[in-house]
């Protein structure tokens, strides 16, 4: 490896030996692509003319007006996932791979991977926890419509972490022809660094748009954190600024119980899915099952850079419960006419608290995805 792949004590490359050459090949392809203007040209053209970048920055009208929404929900595919999937798809082409595999939780990353599979001509297989297949039927159908095979994973808790396990097992046997298109800024090096760079566009645009709209930087930047790709993409260009960064984890049914996905708030350092990071685990090191109303935040580890940002105090991490997220989801729908993803509603839930406490602060919120996938669940939950 040419980079060290560490964020303080976190990160690294904890995978079976057999996968190391595949990750070295990926790191080399990533670093080479960063030096190659033709890669940036092709990616930027796809982001602009295919995916719809730049995405708007929307100032709220009826919610507190100091809240600004970075509208990744308007990106093709319906979430920020498309940014980095297009980039990794181009990398897979450069490496001569013919097949893509991916894990998905809510289905947004699976949909994005199916999109790039269809667009760039890959055989595409999506691993998805059987529990998530049941609660995200619409996204399963979308993936299949675009030609991807969706494999329900029955092992473990049948959610995102189990889908990652299964994708890693597939990749152990298939890496010569197959690129593992990991969906978040987690996993073994080089994924956390690479995915951050490919998602950095969110914060770069938002930074410029804030300056255009209010003539200064926001005071607070808020994003939801599952694996943490939309948050790190939004945070990256603000890390050196005097701007507060807040990541919102899934507090599920409450942080005092076991039914949540608040890895940074309730987990402890460990090693899972290729990286040293915070993990929700028992005393033996067995990874515990998580809960969140949003499948995309239902994950017991977190990107290693967030673990580092927490430990050095550069970012603050808080929780929003299922109930708070659902309330924010409804508030946004009624107030602004926007149906956001349950994941993004966690960020908004916290933003509403900050807006109330600090009416003078400009608050930038990552609206990471749209809520179409969640409306049938919302109908049940909200009546």
């Amino acid at each position, binding site marked *: *490896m040419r980079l060290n792949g560490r964020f303080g004590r976190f990160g690294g490359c*904890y995978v079976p*030996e*057999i996968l190391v050459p595949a990750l070295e090949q990926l790191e080399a392809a990533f670093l080479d692509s960063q030096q190659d203007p033709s890669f940036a040209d092709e990616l930027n053209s796809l982001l602009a003319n295919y995916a719809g970048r730049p995405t708007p920055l929307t100032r709220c009208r009826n919610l507190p007006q100091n809240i600004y929404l970075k509208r990744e929900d308007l990106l093709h595919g319906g979430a920020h996932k498309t940014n980095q999937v297009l980039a990794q798809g181009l990398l897979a082409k450069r490496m001569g791979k013919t097949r893509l595999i991916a894990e998905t939780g809510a289905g947004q990353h699976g949909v994005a991977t199916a999109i790039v599979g269809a667009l760039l001509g890959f055989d595409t297989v999506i691993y998805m926890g059987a529990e998530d297949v049941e609660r995200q039927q619409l996204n399963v159908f979308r993936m299949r419509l675009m030609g991807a095979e969706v494999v329900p994973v029955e092992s*473990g808790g049948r959610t995102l972490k189990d889908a990652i*396990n299964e994708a890693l097992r597939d990749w152990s*046997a298939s890496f010569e022809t197959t690129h593992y298109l990991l969906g978040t800024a987690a996993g073994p090096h080089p994924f956390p660094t690479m995915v951050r760079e490919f998602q950095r566009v969110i914060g770069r645009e938002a930074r410029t748009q804030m300056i255009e709209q209010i003539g200064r930087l926001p005071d607070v930047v808020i994003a939801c954190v599952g694996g943490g790709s939309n948050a790190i993409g939004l945070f990256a260009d603000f890390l050196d600024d005097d701007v507060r960064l807040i990541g919102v984890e899934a507090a599920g049914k409450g942080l005092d119980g076991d039914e949540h996905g608040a890895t940074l708030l309730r987990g402890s350092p460990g090693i899972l*899915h290729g990286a040293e990071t915070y993990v929700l685990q028992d005393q033996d090191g067995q990874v515990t099952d998580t809960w969140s109303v949003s499948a995309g935040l239902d994950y017991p580890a977190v990107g290693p850079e967030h673990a580092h940002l927490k430990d050095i105090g550069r970012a603050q991490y808080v929780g929003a419960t299922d109930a708070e997220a659902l309330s924010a989801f409804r508030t946004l729908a009624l107030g602004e006419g926007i149906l956001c993803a349950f994941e993004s509603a966690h960020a908004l839930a916290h933003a509403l608290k900050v807006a109330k406490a600090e009416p003078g602060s400009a608050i930038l919120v990552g609206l990471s995805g749209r809520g179409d996938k969640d409306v049938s669940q919302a109908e049940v939950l909200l009546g």
Partner: protein
Amino acid sequence: MSRYAAMFDRLDREGAFGAFLMLGDPDLQTSARLLDEVIEGGADMIEVGIPFSDPVADGPVIQAAAQRAFAAGVRVADCLDLIGSLRARNSDVPIGILTYANIVVARAGFMRDAAQAGADSLLIADVPAMEAEPFTREMEKSGLEPVLIAAANTPDATLKRIASLSKAYTYCVSRAGITGTHADGRFNADLVQRVKSAGAPPPIFGFGISTPNHVRAALEAGAKGVICGSAIVDLVSRREGVASFVQSLKAVTRNDSVAE
């Protein structure tokens, strides 16, 4: 002399047969009996898994074994007790632990406890040579011999690193994939040669050893032995005895001497 070195000495040109069992599968009592059975069947070395919730290097058979252990309420401390009682019953057989990094880092003093229980070696499936050094250093301090994996796609530079960091044996994987992957009876003689040239510990093939022919082919490829896992665990899942199966595979190593 370490128990592995003594075993290779004793076997001389005879191949070593390693039997893998998941500790606590399907429950603690049965697991203790199965450990005795594979030794009765003639296993020269015992490899034991400590179940982990997210075993990314394992196929369905070993995953199911871990699930059975969890269903029986088996904890890491119980696994160390099983090793301790096996060691009390058998002072010579090398015992190696195969598990995952999070199990090792979650429990303060895991390695020391494992060594005190009587384990000889530790292989951490998700710690490759490039991340191994802090772990192997602590293993040596604790009295465990580090074991690392060499795969067909592992470059010579990494094999040199494996040579400098590991002891006991080199766990060789002939084909890409996870445990239980069928090797179709083909074992990579080139890998064995490269492991030997790098000066790494004796090469032993794992993954996909399930028939006498596989054992024969692995030894013909130049390995000093084999480890059979999924095929034994599959018998456990069907509540069948394992001694006679181990016996049938071990017999091959007595008839076919290790190629030099």
